[in-house]
């Protein structure tokens, strides 16, 4: 579960966005789409202090490789984006509750920004099992869009792409592409405003929705109680332990 893994390669795939691959069979083996890993540099790098940051498992290779999609945002992601093969890294995972899916029913994935990561993993697994799914992917503009060839190569799927400025794909919000069947299973991962929009849409069309939420994490395993999100009944839920994937109805949504 705790692994000093070798960073095999990093590759820039969009503005401020990198694709990282690690050799880590122990974590890859048990991983399920929707789970995450705490990614850090450990305690041995002189002059460096960095709490690990949570990252959705973005892909897994048969050879034990693990892929992550990383976008720089604050201090930690900027530091992690600068990692080069050979640098010390420490991975903790797989962690958290994955998406729970009925393979017989249609699947709609709604991805905003790096919220695409868990769906790369899921789409690849689905393809390997000879199944297919709907992948809706939205970004602010074209420069932020993930390398689409790499996406196809990894998942055997193509995304239905939306950009707010219309520079690539359809102009507008990703939610516009959501036309779920009555028995569809909708999965969403992305910025909170997007999750709200998807939740509203799912309520209207009355379909099952699972969302992957984000909150600051320190431990990733339930010991620090740092990562809480509000439950429908008002209690605090730990995103790392009871999440990050929740059935939409389990959470408190702004009405």
């Amino acid at each position, binding site marked *: *579960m*705790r692994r000093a893994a070798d960073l095999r390669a990093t590759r820039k795939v969009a503005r401020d966005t990198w694709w990282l691959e690690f050799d880590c069979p122990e974590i890859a083996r048990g991983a399920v789409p929707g789970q995450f890993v705490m990614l*850090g540099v*450990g*305690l041995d790098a002189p002059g460096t*202090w*960095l*709490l*690990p940051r949570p990252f959705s498992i973005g892909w897994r290779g048969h050879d034990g490789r693990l892929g992550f999609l990383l976008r720089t945002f604050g*201090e*930690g992601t900027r530091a992690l984006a600068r990692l080069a093969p050979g640098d010390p890294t*420490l991975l*903790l995972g797989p962690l958290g509750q994955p998406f729970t899916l009925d393979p017989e029913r249609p699947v709609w994935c709604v991805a905003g920004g790096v919220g695409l990561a868990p769906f790369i993993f899921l789409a690849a697994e689905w393809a390997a099992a000879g199944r297919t799914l709907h992948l809706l992917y939205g970004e602010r503009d074209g420069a932020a869009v993930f390398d689409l060839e790499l996406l196809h190569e990894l998942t055997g799927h193509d995304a239905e792409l939306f950009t707010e400025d219309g520079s690539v794909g359809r102009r507008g919000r990703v939610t516009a592409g959501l036309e779920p069947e009555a028995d569809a299973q909708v999965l969403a991962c992305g910025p909170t405003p997007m999750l709200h929009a998807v939740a509203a849409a799912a309520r209207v069309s009355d379909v099952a929705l699972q969302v992957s939420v984000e*909150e*600051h*994490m*320190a*431990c*990733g*395993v*339930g*010991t*620090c*109680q*740092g*990562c*809480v*999100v509000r439950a429908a009944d008002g*209690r*605090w839920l730990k995103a790392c*332990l009871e999440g990050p994937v929740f059935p939409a109805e389990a959470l408190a949504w702004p009405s």
Partner: protein
Amino acid sequence: MADLRQSVFGVEFQAPVLLASGTCGYGQEYADLIELDGLGGLVTKAVSPEPRPGNPPHRVAETPGGMINAIGLENPGLRGFIEDKLPWLRAHLKRARAFVNVVGRSEEDYATVVAGLDGEQGFLGYEINVSCPNVKGGTMFGTEERALASLVRRLRGETARPLVVKLTPNVADVGVFARICEEEGADGLSAINTFPGMVVDIERRRPLIGNRSGGISGPAILPMGVYATWRARQSCDLPIMGIGGIRNAHDALQYVLAGACLVQIGTASFVDPDAAMRTQRGIAAYLDRHGIGTFAELVGRLDAPPVPIAAVAPAG
């Protein structure tokens, strides 16, 4: 191979490294990640008389060389702890020692938790978290001499178990408070708890943390903790658990030389859950390298004569 065992609080500790309160849950959460029973022990998350919901998010964020946290002492309360948490500790910790971290808003609160737990099995003693605001007065128990003295006296009356007071660093001289604890019958001290801090989200122009402010921990406070431990050592004879910013044996040994017979690791476990075990191994290696047979010989072996506070006050 050097001998890490020592006798403290009348019992044997197999090793000097414990997991700090609030960073290891109630043990259980770390069960499949590290071999808890191979450590010196752990201190549970705070326990209050009634359950506490805790603060709104964000509860944690990184700060330079450390982190800020404002969990809000979320805990299941005395009953919940006894029913859902303590049984696991009792069942799984055979050699490692457990302390229960106790919080309250009034003397009564603390006494209720201690009295309510005292008959139970599965833990060694109490670590009293006095970095809590006292409803009457508003200031923390740990920063007000009379309030602290009265609290320790009261709790001493409630239990014969090891009673350890966790000092807050937000005072002019921790030595004064260390002495008070000794005079009022405490069995030991933990030094130190977090420093009050604040992180401002400059884009949203509001505190990044839901509670506005929080406690700062991690390597950033290492030298403050070592200093507080040393001051406490100068000021009383109680056994001291050194806490604050420890990542490895090098950090831990600074506390040990300053006078701590046990150390606790908190924030570093978030970076590497193995930090505590690696620290224990590193301490043993240091003892071997220096030909020191037993850990106990090293405690407080600092070549620096005691000096009055005046002489050690920070002087730019």
